């Protein structure tokens, strides 16, 4: 650790992993509810479990992004963090807000939660992924602003690199587009239209800047390849991301009441969205092949390469599968979407945060890399989680294809629930894969507690 203030990243990383575990546990509950419908009913109905599952995902990724930037920005800027105190305060505020919100979801009926938290003042709740009560939403904005402020001030007093610039830009975009979560018109079409300005422009827009910056940072560190080379390709890749991804938002505007021309705009641009992901894969492998040093943290290299591959497959290939309007006409709102969502989020965002944690955490604990045995455990967890997530995606794809066939293409279409019964075998297998994923995650957590010889920081 070059700057003492980088240490503030540590609680962020720990919280991220803890919440990740929570997310997976709720995922398993939901997976079981898919086949044993009354499991935990009425204590935890499916909609509550799902809200916890998706909200925890967002929150732990945000924790990861924040921790990563508090670690990365001082090192890039070659100066101490502007205010470590603010960073720590923000951490506790965010953690408390997150915890209270989740407890609210679990303990209070959602309608009462809405009433007590001022949803009558400004209707924002009850939309997918944006279920948070008004105070939590305001809290997220404040946390994001504090984060942005701290990072920007740090950057301003030190060196300004492309990586830190892109990361900050990504965070700025994250904060700005989140503001659309406060806009909820009665007009359902407009509601949905701008809802995507948060959801799509986050995950297929500004978050990719954060992802690219984090990956580039780790690649510079573990490969020793010239910064100039890595940064200019980073620019090229994120350019392609924005070129394809912004208009690519149109692939959500096919069937929600928006004009038909979006079918063309959305199809063409989103069909090109795999290009930046493919470039990222080739880029990561090239840089590792051209490495100038053997970094002792082999596990971090594996996570980094894994990020680039699984992001390409999950976001690029699985996204492409159903992005063209004529195909999406049948695939829209089926398990195929769920398959894509799982693999893409895992590959692009879960993995990049773990990459960063895997690289930075040993250094934060005073060593260049973890002991050999811990790294082997990490690698096992990588393969267990990645392979099981692949199975989840494949099984949901299978479920989705059968669902599309029986419910939408067949000349004697079956009802939704009848179809669900006939594809339960896929859901059972998915739940099994989910258990393997949990084992992988537990192994990852376990790797932090393995003791042994480790190399000191050079």
């Amino acid at each position, binding site marked *: 650790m070059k700057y003492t203030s980088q240490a503030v990243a540590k609680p962020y990383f720990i919280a991220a992993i803890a919440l990740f575990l929570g997310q997976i546990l709720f995922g398993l509950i*939901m997976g079981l*509810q*898919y086949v044993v*419908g*009354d499991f935990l*009913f*009425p204590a935890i*109905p*499916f*909609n509550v479990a*799902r*809200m916890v599952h998706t909200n925890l995902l967002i929150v732990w990724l945000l924790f990861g992004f924040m921790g990563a930037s508090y670690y990365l920005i001082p090192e890039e800027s070659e100066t101490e963090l502007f205010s470590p105190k603010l960073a720590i305060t923000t951490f506790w505020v965010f953690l408390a807000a997150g915890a209270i919100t989740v407890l609210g979801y679990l303990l209070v009926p*959602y*309608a009462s939660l*809405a009433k007590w938290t001022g949803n009558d003042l400004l*209707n924002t*709740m*009850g*939309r*997918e992924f944006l*279920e948070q009560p008004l105070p939590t939403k305001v809290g997220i904005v404040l946390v994001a602003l504090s984060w942005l402020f701290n990072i920007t001030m740090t950057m301003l007093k030190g060196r300004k690199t*492309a990586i830190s610039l892109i990361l900050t830009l990504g965070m700025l975009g994250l904060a700005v587009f989140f503001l659309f979560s406060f806009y909820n018109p*009665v*007009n*359902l*079409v*407009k509601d*949905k239209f701008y809802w995507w300005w948060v959801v799509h422009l986050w995950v297929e827009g500004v978050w990719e800047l954060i992802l690219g910056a984090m990956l580039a940072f780790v690649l510079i560190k573990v490969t020793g390849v010239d910064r*100039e080379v890595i*940064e*200019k*390709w980073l*620019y*090229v890749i994120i*350019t392609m991301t*924005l*070129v394809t991804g*912004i*208009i690519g*938002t*149109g692939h959500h505007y*096919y*069937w*929600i*009441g*928006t*004009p038909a021309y*979006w079918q063309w705009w959305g199809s063409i641009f989103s069909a090109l969205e795999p290009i930046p992901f493919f470039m990222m894969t080739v880029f990561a492998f090239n840089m590792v092949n051209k490495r100038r040093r053997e970094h002792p943290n082999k596990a971090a290299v594996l996570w980094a390469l894994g990020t680039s591959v699984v992001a390409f497959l999950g976001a690029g290939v699985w996204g492409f599968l159903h992005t063209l309007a004529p195909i999406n*006409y049948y695939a829209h*709102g*089926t398990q195929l979407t769920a398959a894509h969502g799982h693999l893409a989020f895992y590959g692009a965002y879960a993995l990049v945060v773990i990459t960063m944690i895997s690289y930075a955490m040993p250094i934060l604990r005073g060593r260049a890399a973890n002991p050999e045995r811990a790294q082997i455990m990490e690698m096992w967890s990588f393969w267990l989680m990645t392979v099981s997530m692949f199975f989840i995606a494949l099984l949901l794809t299978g479920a989705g294809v059968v669902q599309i066939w029986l*419910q*939408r*293409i067949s000349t004697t*279409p*079956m*009802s*939704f*629930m009848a179809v*669900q019964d006939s594809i339960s075998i896929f859901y059972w297998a998915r739940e099994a894969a989910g258990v393997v994923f949990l084992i992988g995650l537990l192994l990852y957590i376990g790797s932090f507690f393995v003791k042994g010889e480790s190399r000191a920081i050079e």
Partner: protein
Amino acid sequence: MSATFTKSMARNVFYGGGVFFFLLFLALTFDTMKVLPKRDNSQNITPAVAHGKKLWETNNCIGCHTLLGEGAYFAPELGNVYVRRGPDFIKAWIKGQPTGVPGRRQMPQFNLSDMDIDDLIAFLKYASEINTNKWPPNIEG
């Protein structure tokens, strides 16, 4: 002359390209907002519909169902449920939950008043009349 590929140009292309496509997106958004009134059935938004939408949201219906294909994929599509089932069925269904059939997926009892349910149905009727470019492919959603 050797080929040039500089970081500063890559940066310029990034800013230029990003701004360019965002402006294009704004232009398309502008056009969309202009065309929407012809498609979005907003002329039929009544206070009942508005209240129905709020009930839809504050009971987190999207956590299980899809609406125009968006939401969770756990329970049936409701964008066209008004057409598929009709108001009476919907009302009886909401009142009858949960079914309590062992092993079946359960919908909670939301304790809505008759008037609330009518508003919710008004909202679903409004949603079913949005021009969705003929989606879903058939009545099953």
